[in-house]
C-alpha cells in the first residue's frame, strides 16, 4: 500500500509538472507579443518626451517616476534595451534624453544591486551595451557594478567586468581586477575571458596598462597571464618589463611563454640571445620554450638565427620541428638549402617536405580561387 501511495504521489507531481510545462510553453510563445506591447508603451512615452526636448523643455518629472517604476521590472528593462537600440542615432536629442534619465539609472542601480544575480548581471550588461558613461558620470553606478564582481555568479562577474571596461575608468577596473584576484582559485575567471573583456576597454589604454603593471605582482597567475595577453595585443612599449619576465627563471613558465610570444610580435634585439638559448636547449622537458621561441624567431633575421633553427629541425619534438620549419620559411631560406642542411634526418626531412607541400597547396588554392573569381563562380561553392 505504501508503494502505491508513493507512486500516486509521484504521478500527481508529474502531472503538475506536465501542466506547468504546457502552461509555460504557451507563456513563452506569447513572450514576443508581450515584449512588443511593452516596447510600444515605452516608445510612445519616449516619443512624447523627445518632443519636449526638441522644444527645449526637460523630461517631465512624472515621466521619470513612471520610468523608475517601469524599469524596476526586468522585463520592461529588456524592452527598454531594444528601444535604446532604435533611438540611438548619435544626435544631441538622444544624448540629452539619456543624460536626463540619469536619476532613473541611479535609482535602478540601487534596485538591481539588491536583486538576485541574474538580474544584477543583466543590468551590468545593459550599462555596458549602451555605454552610458559617455553621457554621464555616475560614481554610484560604478560602485554597484564593482560590487557585482564580488558575487558568486560567474556571469554576474563577467558582465560587471565588461561594464567596468565600457565605463573606461582605469582605477575602478584595476580595483575590480584585484578583487577578482583575491577570490578563491577555483572561482577565478578564465584568462581568456578577462583578456577579452580588457580588449573592450574604452578609456586610456596606456594609463590602464600602467596601473596594471603597478599591481601586477599582487595578481594571481591566471590574471597575470590575462594582463600579459592584453598588453601583447595592445602595445609594444613594454619590452623592458617583458624582458625581465623572460629572463627571470623564478617566474611561472606560462608567464615566460607570454613574454616569448610578446617578443615574437614585437622583435627586440635584447630578447634575441634568450630566444636563441631556448631554441638551442636540448632538454626535451623544456620543449615548450623551444617550440614557442622557434616560432617567435621568425621575425629575427640573421645567420645565427637560421643556424639555430636548422639545428632545431633535428629536435625529437614534433612542434619544435614544425615551428622551426615555418620560421625558416619566413626567413626566406630556400627548401633546397634547408634539405641540404638537415641531411639524412628522416623526421626533419618529412617536416620540410610537408611545409613545402603546404606552401604549394596554398599556391594552388590561391590560383584556383583567382580562376573561379574570373569565371564569376563564388568561392567555396
Amino acid at each position, binding site marked *: 500500500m505504501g508503494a502505491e501511495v508513493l507512486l500516486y504521489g509521484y504521478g500527481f*507531481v*508529474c502531472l503538475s*509538472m506536465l501542466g506547468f510545462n504546457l502552461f*509555460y510553453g504557451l507563456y513563452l510563445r506569447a513572450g514576443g507579443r508581450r515584449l512588443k506591447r511593452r516596447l510600444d508603451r515605452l516608445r510612445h512615452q519616449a516619443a512624447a518626451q523627445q518632443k519636449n526636448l526638441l522644444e527645449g523643455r526637460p523630461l517631465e518629472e512624472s515621466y521619470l517616476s513612471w520610468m523608475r517604476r517601469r524599469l524596476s521590472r526586468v522585463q520592461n528593462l529588456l524592452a527598454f534595451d531594444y528601444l535604446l537600440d532604435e533611438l540611438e542615432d548619435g544626435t544631441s536629442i538622444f544624448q540629452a534624453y539619456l543624460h536626463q534619465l540619469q536619476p532613473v539609472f541611479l535609482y535602478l542601480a540601487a534596485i538591481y544591486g539588491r536583486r538576485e544575480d541574474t538580474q544584477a548581471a543583466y543590468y551590468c550588461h545593459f550599462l555596458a551595451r549602451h555605454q552610458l558613461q559617455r553621457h554621464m558620470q555616475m560614481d554610484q553606478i560604478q560602485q554597484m557594478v564593482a560590487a557585482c564582481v564580488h558575487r558568486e555568479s560567474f556571469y554576474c562577474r*563577467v558582465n560587471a567586468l565588461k561594464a567596468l571596461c565600457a565605463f573606461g575608468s582605469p582605477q575602478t577596473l584595476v580595483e575590480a581586477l584585484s578583487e577578482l584576484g583575491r577570490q578563491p582559485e577555483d572561482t577565478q575567471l*578564465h584568462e581568456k575571458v578577462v583578456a*577579452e573583456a580588457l580588449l573592450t576597454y574604452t578609456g586610456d589604454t596606456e594609463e590602464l596598462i600602467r596601473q596594471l603593471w603597478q599591481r601586477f605582482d599582487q595578481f594571481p597567475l591566471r590574471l597575470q597571464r590575462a594582463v600579459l595577453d592584453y598588453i601583447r595585443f595592445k602595445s609594444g612599449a613594454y619590452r623592458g618589463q617583458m624582458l625581465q619576465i623572460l629572463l627571470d627563471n623564478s617566474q611561472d613558465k606560462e608567464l615566460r611563454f607570454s613574454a616569448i610570444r610578446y617578443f615574437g610580435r614585437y622583435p627586440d634585439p635584447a630578447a634575441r640571445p634568450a630566444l636563441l638559448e631556448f631554441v638551442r636547449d636540448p632538454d626535451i622537458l623544456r620543449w615548450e620554450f623551444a617550440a614557442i621561441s622557434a616560432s617567435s624567431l621568425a621575425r629575427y633575421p640573421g645567420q645565427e638565427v637560421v643556424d639555430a633553427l636548422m639545428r632545431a629541425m633535428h629536435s625529437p619534438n614534433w612542434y619544435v620541428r614544425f615551428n622551426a620549419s615555418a620560421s625558416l620559411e619566413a626567413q626566406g631560406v630556400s627548401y633546397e638549402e634547408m634539405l641540404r642542411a638537415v641531411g639524412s634526418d628522416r623526421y626533419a626531412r618529412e617536416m620540410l617536405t610537408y611545409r613545402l607541400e603546404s606552401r604549394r597547396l596554398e599556391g594552388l588554392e590561391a590560383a584556383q580561387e583567382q580562376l573561379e573569381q574570373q569565371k564569376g563562380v563564388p568561392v567555396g561553392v
Partner: protein
Amino acid sequence: MRDFIQWFLLCVECFFILYMVGYASFLFLSVTVGSSDLYASKRRNLLKNELSNDYYVPVSIIVPAHNEGVTIESTVRSLLALDYKLYEIIVVDDGSTDDTAQVLRERFHMWRVDRPIQRRIPCQPEEEVYETRAWGVPITLVRKRNGGKADALNMGINVSNYPYFLCMDADSVLQHDSLEKIVRPVLEDPTVVAVGGSIRPCNGAEIENGRVVRYRMPQKLLACMQVLEYDRSFLASRILFDKFNGNIIISGAFGLFLKSVVIAAGGYDHTTMGEDMELVVKLHVFCRESGRRYRIRYVTDAICWTQVPERLGDLCKQRRRWHIGLFQSMMKYRNIMANPKYGAVSFVSYFYFLLYELFSPYIEVFGLLTTLLAFAVDLINLPFMVLFFGIYVVYTAILSLTAFFARIHTIDLRLYPSDACKAVGLCVVEVACLRFVMAWVRMTALISYRKKKNTWGRIERQKIEFK
C-alpha cells in the same frame, strides 16, 4: 512446494517494489531537476547571462568515418557553417570500402600531402593524407588502415593541432552555435576536462546553414519513439549527474575533450565497443588517481542533430552495440563500485548504470517470467497487476512528455499540433512496447559479442538534407 513459491514470489515482490520505487524516485528527481534547469538556463540566456564574445578556444573537430559516402559531404558542410572563429576539421576514413574519401576529395578539392603525424597514441598507420584550406577552415582527410572507431579517433587526436578536440559521428549535423556553446563550460571553469552536448534526432527536421528551419516529428513511428526516448534519457540522467560531476557517459556523437588529459590517460580504447563511455570513465579514474581537480560537464543548449535508425533491425544492432559497450566499460572499471575514493561517481552514477541500465533488461525479463509463474500457480492479483502496470506506463509516459515539451520549449522549436498529438500517443507505445523489445535485445546482446567487438556497426544511412 506452493509455500516455497509463495515465499519466492513475496521476495520477488519486495525486490520489485524497492527497484521500482528507486527508479521512479530517480526519474522523478532527474526530470524535475532537468526541467527546472532548462527553464533557468532559458531565463539566463534571455537576460544575457552568457558569454557572447569570441573567446578563441581552438578546437579540432574529429569525424571518424567508415563507409559514410552518403552522409559525409553534408556533415562537413554543416561543420563549415559553424559560428566559431578558430577550428579545424579532421575526417578519419577508417578503411572505408565505399567512396567516402573520394567524395571528400572531389567535393572539397583536397590535395594529397605527405604530412608527418606525431604518434602520441598508438593507432593503425595512415595510408594517405589530404588537405585543403580553401574553405576558410582547414580540412584534413586521413585515410588509414581499418582499426575501428576508437582507433580512428586516436588517429584524429594524433593529427589534431589544437588543445581541445571534439568528436562527432559522420552521420550527424552540428547546430550553428553548438561549438560556441559546448566550449562555454571550459571558459566558466578551467578545471573542465570534458563536455558532453545534447543529441537530438534529426529525422524530420529541415536544417539550413546549421539552423533548424522546420521541425517535424519523423514520419516513421520508430524514429518518433526514439525522439521521446532521447529527450527522456538526456533530461533524465545527464543534467542531474552533472550537478555532482557524476556523468560517466558523453555520447560519441558530440563531446569536447581536453586533448592533453585524454593523451595522458591513454586515448580511446580500441578493444571496447563503447569507446565513448570507456573514455569518460577512464578520465574519472585517471583524474582521481592522479589527484587532479577536474570537472566533466554536460550542456543542454549545445545541440547535435543525428540520424536515428528507422528500421527495427538497425535499432536492435545499435542498442546491442551500446549494451556491449556499457558492459565492457562497467566491467573494466569495476573497482569504482562502492569505492569511497570515487564518491558520487561510485555510489550514484555507477550503481545507477549497473542496476537500471546494465542489469535492467535481465530484471525486466525476470519480472515477466515471474509474473507468468504466478499466473500459472494462480497466485496473482490480476487487477493489482494491471493497475501496477498501468501506473508504470502512465508515469513513465508523463515523464517522457515532460522532458519532450521542456526541450521543445527551451530550444525555441515550433511544434505542430499534429506532432504534439503524435508525441502524446506514441509515448505510451514507447513505454509499453518498444521498451520491452529493447530489453530483450539488450538481454541477448552479450551473446557472441566477442565476434563483433572490433567492427563498425552498419546502419542504413539516409542522406541528410543540409542546405
